[in-house]
């Protein structure tokens, strides 16, 4: 390990996901000596990028696997809709505009896209899907990094970023649980993700309910570097109490369940809490548009759990679930298997069924088939739950990412007390709050990571040369 500590690296990249890799590749291609400090072991490398699937990309005409066109204004409108305007429009436009040139760059660095998608999401125009998903993308970038001679250290937990007089000198890092070592660099790119892996931090921000949340992504995003930077006075963006949470299968693993834990059954179901009471309009809008709000809704229920109940009419209307549904021939039997009060569930479903009316049911569009005279109303897809067998899924909030992060400018430069740090850049989830203040847009996390990762890498490469010259002088 002495080579690591004796070298003064041109660019130290903290983190090992998409943004970190994009930064490292850019810097190495500019001729710099680059080291990647990835906190996870090799098998879990790549942070949350392992779990991603696609990249949202602006394009003025057909581009690679993308059809038609998806131009800046439409993309920005989509972003403004989900963030309710809570974005830095300047940075957002930069990310959107640059995304167009990123796609060919990704292909040139080994990323493969699926020619067309036969699945459930009709995103062939706006989103390019990675062949094999995010881990395949991460693998491609690690192979590129190896070919470029980038040093990669796994299980390298950065504990402290040394900043003195607005200038970065070194990081303190523990490798594979060993003693702290000091790795020096001329520049640093911070791309170490959010803090959703630190349940205590989530609980401080959200209250004790957060201890019942499930974390959909990597357990290695514990926000250590983010906290260290904020403690040193780095400027922050985003609300620490906010995180993006969706309602996922309640039986999912505590960490790292990823995509398969999603449940698409809610619009065709009645959803009750542990007391057997309904609490929200299950048919408010098409899934997945309303998917995101259910994390919050379930988080507000007792014990942060809810139960989605359908009958045999709806069993095949949504994507297959990873865990089989709980199944019973009667509602009472289902209640017993799921630990719900049977009599109360029977009453709730009875009242719901009585409020259903005749009409045309269209599972793929807003059909206006609404209930009458029940609170809360179900405004679409309201069909009585009557045909056995009955099926139930438990729901829990699953955290996708946190919003609190480092504030950056259009060169991905980090500021402290309003002043630009000389040689510190940030990319990916650690600065995504600068653009994505709330809500979520499928594939936009990868856009931010790729665009700002590349910018950070280019900037750091230039900064390393300047730093070298200034030392020489």
């Amino acid at each position, binding site marked *: 390990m002495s080579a690591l500590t004796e070298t003064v690296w041109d660019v130290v990249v903290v983190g090992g996901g998409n943004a970190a890799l994009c930064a490292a590749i850019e810097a190495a291609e500019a001729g710099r000596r680059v080291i990647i400090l990835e906190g996870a072991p090799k098998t879990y490398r790549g942070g949350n990028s392992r779990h991603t699937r696609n990249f949202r990309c602006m394009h003025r005409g057909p581009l690679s696997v993308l059809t038609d066109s998806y131009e800046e204004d439409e993309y920005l409108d989509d972003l403004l809709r989900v963030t309710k305007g809570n974005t830095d429009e300047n940075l957002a436009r930069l990310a959107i505009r640059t995304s167009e040139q990123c796609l060919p760059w990704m292909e040139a660095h080994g990323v493969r896209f699926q020619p067309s*998608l036969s*699945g459930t999401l009709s995103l062939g125009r706006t989103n390019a899907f990675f*062949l*094999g998903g*995010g*881990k395949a993308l991460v693998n491609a970038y690690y192979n590129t990094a190896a070919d470029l001679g980038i040093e990669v250290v796994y299980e390298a937990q950065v504990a402290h970023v040394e900043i003195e007089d607005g200038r970065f000198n070194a990081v303190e890092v523990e490798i594979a649980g060993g003693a702290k070592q000091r790795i020096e660099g001329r520049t640093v790119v911070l791309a170490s993700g959010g803090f959703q892996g630190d349940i205590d931090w989530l609980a401080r921000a959200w209250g004790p309910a957060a201890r019942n949340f499930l974390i959909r992504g990597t357990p290695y995003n514990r926000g250590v570097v983010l906290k260290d930077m904020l403690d040193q006075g780095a400027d922050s963006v985003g609300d620490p109490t906010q995180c993006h949470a969706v309602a996922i299968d309640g039986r999912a*693993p505590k960490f*790292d369940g990823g995509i398969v834990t999603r449940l698409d059954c809610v619009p065709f179901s009645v959803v009750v809490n542990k007391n057997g009471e309904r609490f929200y309009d299950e048919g408010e809008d098409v899934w997945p548009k309303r998917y995101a709000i259910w994390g919050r809704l379930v988080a507000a229920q007792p014990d942060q759990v809810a139960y989605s109940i359908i009958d045999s009419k709806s069993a095949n209307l949504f994507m*297959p*679930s990873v865990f089989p549904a709980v199944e019973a021939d009667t509602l009472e039997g289902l209640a017993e298997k799921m630990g719900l009060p049977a009599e109360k569930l029977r009453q709730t479903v009875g009242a719901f069924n009585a409020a259903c009316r005749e009409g045309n049911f269209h599972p793929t569009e807003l059909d206006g088939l609404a209930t009458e005279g029940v609170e809360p109303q179900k405004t679409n897809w309201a069909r009585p739950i009557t045909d056995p067998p009955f099926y139930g899924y438990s729901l829990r909030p699953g955290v996708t990412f946190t919003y609190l992060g480092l504030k950056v400018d259009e060169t991905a430069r980090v500021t402290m007390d309003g002043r630009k740090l000389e040689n510190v850049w940030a990319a990916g989830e650690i600065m995504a709050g600068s653009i994505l203040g709330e809500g979520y847009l499928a594939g936009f996390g990868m856009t931010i990571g790729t665009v700002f990762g590349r910018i950070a890498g280019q900037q750091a490469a230039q900064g390393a040369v300047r730093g070298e010259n200034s030392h020489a002088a």
Partner: protein
Amino acid sequence: MPLDQARTELSTTEEARRQIEICNACRYCEGYCSVFPAITLQRSFSDGDITQLANLCHNCRGCYYACQYTDPHEFQINLPKALAEARTESWERFSWPGVFSGLFQKSGVALAAALIVGFAALFWAGQALRPESGEGFYAFLSHSVMIGIFTPAFLLPLLAIALGLRAYWREVGGAPVRLAYLVRAFREAARLKDLSGGVAGGCNFEKEDRYTNVRRWHHQAVMYGFLLCFASTGSATILHYVFDMPAPYGLFSLPKLLGIPGGVLLTLGGLGMAVLKTRGEKNLGASALWGGEMAFVLLLSFTGASGLALYAATGTALVGWVLPVHLGAVLAFFLTAPYTKMVHGFFRLAALVRNAQQT
């Protein structure tokens, strides 16, 4: 919960089903090969569905290296291995007669023993049944003796494989076969589409998560080499019986024009496959079969090489040695074919036909 229960209790088919159901909820891999689009057709999977999917898999391993749920993740996905094990179990189930099932699949030693028996049989025939006169090979082994040995040694294995295919077709619920299905299946087999990794440019067999087409090319060399050798023998048979032109044949005859490139492809392709096998991660296939599979590709390669050696020895006294060696290898190859990796070609083709019916 259900997914992390002790998996040692699951049968091979149940374990493959457990993994396939996770894949069906994920669907990130749908561009790699035919297995994933086939999975998305269903929500629940019968044993026959598992058999079909297992025989559709070409063990390219692209999905394994792309999967975020591989060990040490608690979902423990290793689909290439799960399907390889389900696939070889299905071959054992379909093999006829069942007494040989599994023997040559698993055991390289058994296949080597078969080869020695093949040599011995031909050397014995060469000594005991030596013709009084004859030209070329037939100076050492008469045409009628060759026919007497190889006609049953060719037809009986074919019958056994046909019975196995019938059992396969029943288990996977196959429908009547139409020409369009056959055309599509043969076209996909001809270019080994499912080893192409979709747009990835090959598979992940021997260089971990890097893509290469090396395995696909070697496999094609073996496949086309074998078919050319087969066509060479077939053309010689026709020349002999229809045109009354017995062996030996000159360089510019049909048997040689087919057989020499065929032998070269088979020899080099087989050796290449053997080398690649030493580089691939054992635990992503049916690791218990590694020895049997290695012996099989080496036997293929040896059969091709000994055929070329026989041609090179034409007109010399060496023919007396090389001829029984080559014919012994051919004999061992044919007789064990229903019980070696050779069957994968037949079942894969059947799976491609079935897939053409379904997708």
